[in-house]
C-alpha cells in the first residue's frame, strides 16, 4: 500500500520517455513541477555562464598585452557591462534559485513549492529578461545597427545613464531586463519563504530543518529588502529616460549620489544573496564528507540571520570616495568590519566539522575545501578594503576587481561546483565521472589562482579598472598576460564540467538513491525523484532523519 503512489509516479515519469519530442518539449514549457523548473533555471544560467565567461575572455585577451586593439573602447565598455549584469542577474541569481527550487521542497519533505504556478511565472519572466538584455545587441539602435549593447557598467551610475550620455535604447534594455529579473527574483523568494514556513513535513520544526533551507530563508528575506529597492530605482530611471522626470538629473537639482545609494542598498546585500546559498551548499556537503554531524548548528543559524541583518547596513562602503564625510565613513567602516564576526563563526564551525572527521576527498569535498580557503582570503582583502583610508588608495583599481572576484568565483562558484557534483546523482540518477571532475577541479583551481591572485598586483601598482588598454612599461604587462592565461584555464575547466555533465548523463554509472550515504530527506527518494517527491509525506524526529533510519540503535533524536 505504501509504495503504490511512488510506483505510479515513476510510471508517470517513464511515460514521458516514450512520448514524441514535441510532447516532451510541451511538458517542459508548461510544467509547474519544482524540479523541472529548478533544472530549467540551472540550464538557462549555465548558458549565460558560458556567454558571460566568453565576454570575460574577450576582455582578458584585450588586456593581455599593452596597446592592444583587439576590441574598440566602445565594445570594451559593452563587454564589461554585459559581463557584470549577466553574471549577477542572469547567472548567479537564477542558478542559486534553481538549486533552491530543486532542493528546498525535497529537503523539507514537501511535495512541491507553495505556489507552483507563481514558480513557473517567475522562471519565465527571468528567462525573458535575460533574452531581452541580449536582444539589445540587435534592437537597441534599430535592427540594422547591430552591436549596440548597454555600455554604462553594471552599476549604471548617473548621469552616465541620462539621455544625453546614453542616446538610443541600450540603457532602456538594461533597465527593463534588470527590472524584470527583479520581479522574477521577488516572486521566487516569496515562494521559497512560504514553502519553508508552510510546507514542512511532520516533525520538522524550524530547529530541525537542514541548514540549506535555513540559509535560503535568510537569502529570500534579503531579496525582499534588497532587490525591491533596485526595482524601484529602475522605475525611477525609466521615468527619467522616458517621461522626462528629474530623479537623477543633476541639471534640474537631481542627485547622482542618490542613485549610488539606491544601487548599493541593493548591490551590497546582493553579495550576501549570492553567498548565503554557497554557504548552504557547504553546510550540506562538508558534514557528509567528514562523516560528522554539523558542528554548532544553532550558531550557524544565528550567524546566518545576523549576516542577513548586518549586510543591510554596509552598502555605503562602496562609496567611501564620494565624500560622505567622516561620520558616514566611520559608520560604514565599522558596520562592514562587524560582519566579519558572524562570517568568522561560520568558518570556524566548518573547520570544527572537518576537525577529527573521517574525511573523504571526493570531488564535491575538494571543491568545498577550495571554497573555504578562498573565502578566507577574500574575507581578508575585504577587511583591507573596508578601512576607508586604504579604500581611498585602491578604489576603482584592479585590487577591488580581484577582491570581489575572489568572493564571487573563489567562494560562490567553487561551492556551486561542489554542489553540482554532490547533487547530480540525485537529479539524473547517474554518477558524474570522477576523473573528469578532478580535471575540472585542478584546471579551474590553477586558472582561478593565476587570474585572481595576480590581479591584485596591478591594482596595487595603480592600474584602474574599466580601462580598455594601457601603455607598455608600467609594470602591468606581464601580470596582465598571466591573468589572461588564467582566464583560459578557467574556461577550459568549465567546459570540462559541461562535457562531464552531458557525458555522465548518458554514460555515467547508476547512482542509486543514496550514493554518498548522506542524511537529509532528499536522499530517501529514488533518483531522479518522481513527481510529487514523496509517496507518503515523511515524518522526522531529528536533524538527520536518514541517520536515524540507518542507525536505529543510535538515533540522533536521543541527543536533541
Amino acid at each position: 500500500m505504501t509504495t503504490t503512489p511512488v510506483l505510479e509516479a515513476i510510471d508517470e515519469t517513464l511515460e514521458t520517455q516514450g512520448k514524441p519530442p514535441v510532447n516532451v518539449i510541451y511538458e517542459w514549457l508548461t510544467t509547474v513541477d519544482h524540479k523541472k523548473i529548478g533544472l530549467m533555471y540551472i540550464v538557462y544560467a549555465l548558458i549565460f555562464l558560458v556567454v558571460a565567461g566568453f565576454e570575460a575572455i574577450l576582455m582578458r585577451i584585450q588586456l593581455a598585452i599593452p596597446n592592444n586593439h583587439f576590441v574598440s573602447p566602445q565594445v570594451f565598455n559593452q563587454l564589461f557591462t554585459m559581463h557584470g549584469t549577466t553574471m549577477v542577474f542572469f547567472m548567479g541569481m537564477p542558478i542559486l534559485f534553481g538549486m533552491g527550487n530543486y532542493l528546498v521542497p525535497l529537503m523539507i519533505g514537501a511535495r512541491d513549492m507553495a505556489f507552483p504556478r507563481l514558480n513557473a511565472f517567475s522562471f519565465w519572466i527571468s528567462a525573458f529578461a535575460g533574452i531581452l538584455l541580449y536582444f539589445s545587441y540587435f534592437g537597441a539602435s534599430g535592427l540594422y545597427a547591430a552591436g549596440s549593447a548597454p555600455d554604462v557598467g553594471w552599476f549604471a551610475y548617473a548621469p552616465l545613464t541620462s539621455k544625453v550620455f546614453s542616446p538610443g535604447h541600450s540603457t532602456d534594455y538594461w533597465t527593463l531586463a534588470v527590472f524584470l529579473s527583479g520581479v522574477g527574483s521577488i516572486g521566487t523568494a516569496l515562494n521559497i519563504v512560504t514553502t519553508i514556513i508552510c510546507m514542512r513535513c511532520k516533525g520538522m520544526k524550524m530547529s530541525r530543518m537542514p541548514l540549506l533551507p535555513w540559509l535560503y530563508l535568510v537569502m529570500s528575506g534579503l531579496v525582499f529588502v534588497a532587490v525591491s529597492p533596485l526595482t524601484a530605482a529602475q522605475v525611477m530611471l525609466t521615468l527619467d529616460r522616458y517621461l522626462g522626470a528629474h530623479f537623477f538629473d543633476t541639471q534640474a537639482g537631481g542627485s547622482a549620489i542618490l542613485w549610488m545609494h539606491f544601487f548599493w542598498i541593493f548591490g551590497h546585500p546582493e553579495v550576501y544573496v549570492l553567498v548565503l546559498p554557497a554557504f548552504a551548499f557547504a553546510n550540506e556537503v562538508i558534514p557528509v564528507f567528514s562523516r560528522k554531524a554539523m558542528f554548532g548548528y544553532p550558531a550557524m543559524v544565528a550567524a546566518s540571520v545576523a549576516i542577513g541583518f548586518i549586510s543591510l547596513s554596509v552598502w555605503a562602503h562602496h562609496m567611501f570616495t564620494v565624500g560622505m564625510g567622516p561620520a558616514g565613513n566611520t559608520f560604514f567602516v565599522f558596520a562592514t568590519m562587524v560582519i566579519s564576526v558572524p562570517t568568522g563563526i561560520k568558518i570556524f564551525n566548518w573547520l570544527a566539522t572537518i576537525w577529527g572527521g573521517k574525511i573523504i576527498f571526493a570531488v564535491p569535498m575538494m571543491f568545498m575545501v577550495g571554497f573555504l580557503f578562498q573565502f578566507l582570503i577574500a574575507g581578508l582583502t575585504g577587511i583591507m578594503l573596508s578601512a576607508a583610508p586604504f579604500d581611498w588608495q585602491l578604489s576603482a583599481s584592479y585590487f577591488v576587481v580581484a577582491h570581489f572576484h575572489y568572493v564571487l568565483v573563489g567562494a560562490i562558484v567553487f561551492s556551486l561546483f561542489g554542489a553540482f557534483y554532490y547533487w547530480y546523482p540525485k537529479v539524473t540518477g547517474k554518477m558524474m565521472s570522477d576523473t573528469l571532475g578532478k580535471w575540472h577541479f585542478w584546471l579551474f583551481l590553477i586558472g582561478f589562482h593565476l587570474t585572481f591572485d595576480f590581479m591584485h598586483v596591478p591594482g596595487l601598482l595603480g592600474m584602474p579598472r574599466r580601462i580598455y588598454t594601457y601603455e607598455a612599461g608600467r609594470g602591468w604587462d606581464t601580470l596582465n598576460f598571466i591573468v589572461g592565461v588564467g582566464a583560459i584555464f578557467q574556461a577550459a575547466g568549465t567546459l570540462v564540467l559541461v562535457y562531464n555533465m552531458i557525458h555522465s548523463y548518458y554514460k555515467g554509472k547508476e547512482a542509486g538513491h543514496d550514493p554518498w550515504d548522506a542524511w537529509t530527506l532528499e536522499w530517501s527518494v529514488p533518483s531522479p525523484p518522481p513527481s510529487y517527491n514523496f509517496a507518503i509525506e515523511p515524518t522526522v524526529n531529528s536533524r538527520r532523519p536518514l541517520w536515524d533510519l540507518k542507525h536505529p540503535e543510535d538515533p540522533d533524536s536521543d541527543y536533541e
Partner: protein
Amino acid sequence: MTTVTTASRIPIDGPIETPWKLPYRGNIGMACLILAESAIFIIFVVAYIYYIGKSLSGPTPAQVLELPIFGTICLLSSSFFVHHAVTSLRKENFRACTLHLAATVLLGTIFLITTAREWYHLIHDEGLTIKTNLFGSTYYSLVGLHATHVVVGLIMLSLTLAFSLAGKIKEEHSEKLEVLSLYWHFVDAVWVVVFLVVYVIGR
C-alpha cells in the same frame, strides 16, 4: 520493481508533536509581498523626502497642494468594511459580506476619483507635470505608485464582489478573502505614510 526506500519509514519511535499545524500559505505569501512592496515604497518615500525643497523652479507643494481629507477618510474607512466582509463571511452571513464588499469598492473608487481630480487640477490649472521639476517627478511617482496599488486592489475586490453577487463565495473562501483584505490594509497603511510625507511634512 524493487522496494523503494521512502522517508515514510522514518518515524521509528518517539512522539510527534500533534497536531502538526503550519500557517496558511496565503497569509505568509502576502506578508512576503507586503515586505517587498514596503521596500519599494520606502525608496520612493526616501526620494521624496530627499528632494523636498530642492526643486530649481516652481510650483512648490505649498502653492498647489491641498489636504485630501475627504479621500483619506474614505480610503481609511474602507479598511473597516473589508475587515467586516471577512468576519461576516466566516459567520456565513453572505448578505453582509456582499454589502461590506460593495462598500469597500465604493469607498476605494471615491478615493481614486479624488486623486484623479487632484491630478487633473494640478496638470491643467497649475501646469505641474512629472517634467516640471523635482517636486513633480517625486510627487507623481509616489502618489501614482500608491494609486496603482489602489487600482490593483479595486480590480481584485470588484471581482470578489461579482462572485459574491453571483452567490459563488462560501465560508471556505474566507481564508482567501482575508489575504485580499491584508493587501487592502497594507494599501491603506501606505496611504497614511504618503499623506504624512507629501501633504503634511512636504508642505
